């Protein structure tokens, strides 16, 4: 449960703000006429796991979708690795090196697990594909058993393995993961937590999560939003210590 120290590797590229991988500045997003994000600002540190917390309907999923350009923000700027993402389409944003694991996993049910991964490995050379696949199979040894099975017939946990692996099939630097615990049995949630903790060593993670155990175990930093506004943010330890805040906004009691 203890938040780890920042595992930023020594090999940080030089440049202004090179510690910040993703920066959102007062992002405002509308879905049809509804004003969902009313000025969200965030800074995602390279090499760390940041957790986005908030009640249902706070705008967590919309924040991720705004980053991916699926619900393009109307105002505000988003920049990734020093370059602006604003105005880019979803596929261009993905090509910048952002992997997306949506809510409900978004796997292709009619394709086999292997085809899901092949599709995710956009433009990878066969050797790179094998290397990345090996990494994923090491992360999820169980996946070997259902590589040739239609992904629609897999259990929720198995689908989650495929969905996370998909984000690792290209040279992504950032992985956006939306509620990986949703609809999974507690024992499976625990397995997902272990995986994400291991994954943190390799890739920067922005995690949306309602499950406080997962959020506090995986996250190094947190952002708390409500009604499309920032409430507070800081190192994870600070949130774990603040019983009033967690009770008020997350409805959980931390013993």
């Amino acid at each position, binding site marked *: 449960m203890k938040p780890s120290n920042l595992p930023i590797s020594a090999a940080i590229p030089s440049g202004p703000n090179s510690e910040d991988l993703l920066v959102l500045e007062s992002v405002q997003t509308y879905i049809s006429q509804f004003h969902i994000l009313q000025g969200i600002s965030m800074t995602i540190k390279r090499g760390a796991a940041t957790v986005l917390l908030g009640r249902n309907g706070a705008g967590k999923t919309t924040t991720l979708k705004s980053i*991916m350009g*699926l619900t393009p923000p109307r105002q505000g700027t988003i920049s990734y690795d020093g370059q602006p993402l604003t105005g880019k*389409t*979803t*596929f261009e944003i*993905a*090509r910048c090196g952002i992997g*997306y694991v*949506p809510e409900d996993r*978004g796997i*292709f*049910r*009619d*394709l086999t697990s292997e*085809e*899901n991964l*092949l*599709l*995710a490995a*956009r433009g990878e050379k066969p050797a790179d594909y094998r290397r990345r696949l090996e990494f994923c199979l090491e*992360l*999820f040894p*169980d996946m070997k*058993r*259902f590589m040739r099975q239609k992904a*629609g*017939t897999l*259990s929720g*946990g*198995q689908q989650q*393995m495929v969905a996370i692996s*998909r984000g690792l099939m*290209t040279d992504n630097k950032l992985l956006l993961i939306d509620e990986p615990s949703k609809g999974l049995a507690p024992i*499976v949630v625990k*397995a*997902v937590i*272990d*995986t994400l903790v291991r994954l943190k060593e390799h890739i920067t993670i922005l995690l949306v999560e309602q499950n406080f155990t997962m959020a506090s175990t995986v996250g190094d930093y947190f952002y708390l939003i409500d009604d499309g506004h920032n409430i507070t943010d800081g190192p994870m330890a600070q949130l774990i210590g603040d019983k009033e805040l967690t009770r008020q906004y997350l409805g959980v009691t931390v013993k």
Partner: protein
Amino acid sequence: MKVAQRTNPYAPLRDPRLLTLLSVVVGLLLILLYINTAIKFPVFVKFLINGLVESAVLFLMASGLSLIFGLMDVVNFAHGAVFTWGGIAFMWSFNLFTMPAATGKDSSNPVAWMQLGLDPLPATALALLLGLITGGLLGAGVEFLAIRRLYGRPVFQILLTLGLVLVLDESLKIVFSLKAQSYDFLATPWPTGNFKPNSEILVNWKSVAIVVAGLLVFAGVYWLLNRTKVGLVIRGGVEDSQMVQALGYNVKVYFFWVFVLGSVLAALGGIAYSINSAGGSDQMGQLSLLTAFVVVVIGGLGSFSGAAVGALLVGIISPFVAYHFPGLADSFVMILLVLVLLVRPQGLFGGKKY
């Protein structure tokens, strides 16, 4: 991450027993028809050959529709118009290519340069290319200018493509200056001649060419959809286009090319049709479109192999039905559709998205 393997909660979508039953019924029907025609054995073979050719033409028409309607869920009534355009463009340019070079006042004709006096073989090849390009350009224009904005909105697609049918059918008459409803070849396009496997059976080489074209198209598109990365993007994009975009693919570009491919196949269907029946009319597309829609639905929406099986089923059985029950010749396709949908509402291979 350890997760216990659950037994698969979804049984396979296809029930093999139903398919077996259906093939047995169809087989029995064929045997019955055979016994009926057996007194005249060559008649049976002739019917089979005619049925195969008809299946191939039907399949070429239905294959494009299977991509556009079955896979991408675009209700495209203009598909028949593209079929007609492809066929007429083929015949028209073939006729011009085989004409001797224009002289005198004829040479003021803007298309006089196309009168090359070619032999049937090169003229057919060139005209084939031109017909396919016509189909491709029409498809590209329709997708780029209109359908692109209407994905996932079937009512608007129906309204738009029904309007397009009127525009395309009328402009066809202007572009190719059609005077009458029917249009004929001025010379016989390649391939000509027959081959005789038996003293009583005569097969046109053109029939063979059409069947081979159908087989090649089936193999090619099946390979594209199931064995290539492009096919993966298309199959994934049909299921969840946003997620495919989030993996870094420009789905619009892929959908555009699928639509163009579907339209090229429609034009090829029109060309095969016009060669097979040695001519065509400005209505040939609309007449075949309904049958093609039925073939796609019988095969199962979204299943390319299904469209092939549907075309075979309709194409091979219909000559027999027309022979034994002339009254049912036209309604037979609909009866078959009702029968199939009663047994399998999702079509023969439906529920399998490619």
